[in-house]
């Protein structure tokens, strides 16, 4: 397509996939960049197993550290706002203890294995309620890249022994992304919407998310 300035550009396709073109148009510089990124991602884990994400459980039980955590309630806060909500209203050092951390690296952020974090850091920590150790909480303020989301899920849920597990996911989205008949300017924001599986039988505290709105990234995964 021709732009206002007269040069011809390839219009980006909503379909998102033009692998043939991508492969052909990748210049030597692009290849080099891609290789460096891949090397950087994998270099983080030369000591551990393969993969770009590591979940390190820091709790010690009498048995071996590989024992799965028994979990009946898992609350996951994804994104800085949701993580801040948990920090402000739920978490405290009296009732909750840190039991794990996720180490990951991608082009947008890097987390470390320290559990002593500042609110402005990117981190992904797991807490356990001391009075009921089957209640787990995860604060994930770092961005998990789309090709890491599946791995994050498998590693986190894979380390759990689920006991009639109920999962609650807290997340935020910009109001501008909300699709509605009226303009979003006139909407009273912030507002809550929910999605639930049919297995979830309890009362939901807010209206359900209407079509055609969708949720993406880690909360969707």
């Amino acid at each position, binding site marked *: 397509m021709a732009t206002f300035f007269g040069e011809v550009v390839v219009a980006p396709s909503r379909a*998102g*996939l*033009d692998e*043939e073109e991508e492969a052909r148009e990748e210049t030597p510089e692009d290849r080099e960049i891609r290789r460096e990124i891949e090397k950087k991602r994998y270099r983080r884990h030369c000591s551990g197993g393969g993969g770009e994400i590591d979940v390190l459980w820091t709790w010690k039980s009498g048995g071996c550290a590989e024992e799965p955590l028994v979990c009946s309630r898992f609350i996951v806060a994804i994104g800085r706002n949701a993580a801040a909500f948990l920090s402000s209203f739920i978490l405290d050092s009296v009732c909750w203890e840190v039991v794990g951390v996720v180490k990951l690296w991608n082009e947008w952020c890097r987390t470390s294995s320290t559990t002593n974090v500042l609110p402005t850091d990117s981190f992904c920590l797991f807490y356990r309620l001391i009075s009921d150790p089957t209640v787990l909480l995860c604060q994930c303020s770092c961005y998990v890249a789309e090709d890491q989301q599946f791995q994050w899920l498998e590693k986190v849920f894979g380390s759990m022994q689920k006991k009639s597990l109920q999962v609650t996911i807290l997340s935020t989205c910009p109001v501008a992304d909300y*699709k509605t008949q009226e*303009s979003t300017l006139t909407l009273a924001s912030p507002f809550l919407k929910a999605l639930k599986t049919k297995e979830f039988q309890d009362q939901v505290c807010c209206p359900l998310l209407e*079509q055609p709105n969708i949720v993406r990234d880690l909360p*969707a995964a």
Partner: protein
Amino acid sequence: MFIPCDRGGDCAAPDFKGFTLLLPAVSVGNVGQLAIDLVISTLDMTKVGYFYTDCLVPMVGNNPYATAEENSTELSINAEVYSLPSKKLVVLQIRSPFIKNKYRPFCETLLSWVKSSNCARVVLLSSSHAYQRDDEQLLGTPLRYLLTPDLEKAVGGRMQELNWKEMEKVAAYPGISDTDKVLHIPGGGITKLLFTESCSKGIQMAVLLKFCSEGDNIPDAFVLVNYLNEWLQLIRSEVNPSSQWKIPSSWRLLFGNGLPPALF
């Protein structure tokens, strides 16, 4: 990869033996996916399962084919399978793009699922960049088809009767006249890969595609689904077929929200 839905305690995988599998390629204008939406919505197909895959960008929302309060709260994700046993039709809908470098593993897993579920044939709905057409393709119908050799034997004659146009092969090196002709489907996503793999694996596959550009692709979806209907006769086509397709509720607000009154 395929996880059947739990329907009333029956966890057995549904039987697709002899069924026609209809699926979209994520391609220019998302025309294949829009056409599939029309098929699922009009035929009121039942969800029978989904694909658990790390190859597609995750997304989730409420039932995109909701017609009333009661059926609007079922969760829907990025790759779901619907079926209509009365027409021996099974449909896969893909709702998000591929994660980088994951389209090949997806194609492999998909084709091995096709083989293991004993589908009789596969119909892939796709599209291709309109601006890449050559002079001859600019004239006449923008619709094309492709058949793998195994399906050519079975339905090649029908395509002749319908007066359909087969997708032309293009020179491997344009400008040099003496070269081999190859299949080239720009903007078609995984169409070419799925087609060539099906040819070599002996899978009966048909590709139906339309030349189009990005924009409001709803009319393109209608044209493509009517093209499909000429062959498969999913709905009655004697009356104006376009009016028979039911637009799903999720197509609302495709181009943004309402305007703030204060703007005027």
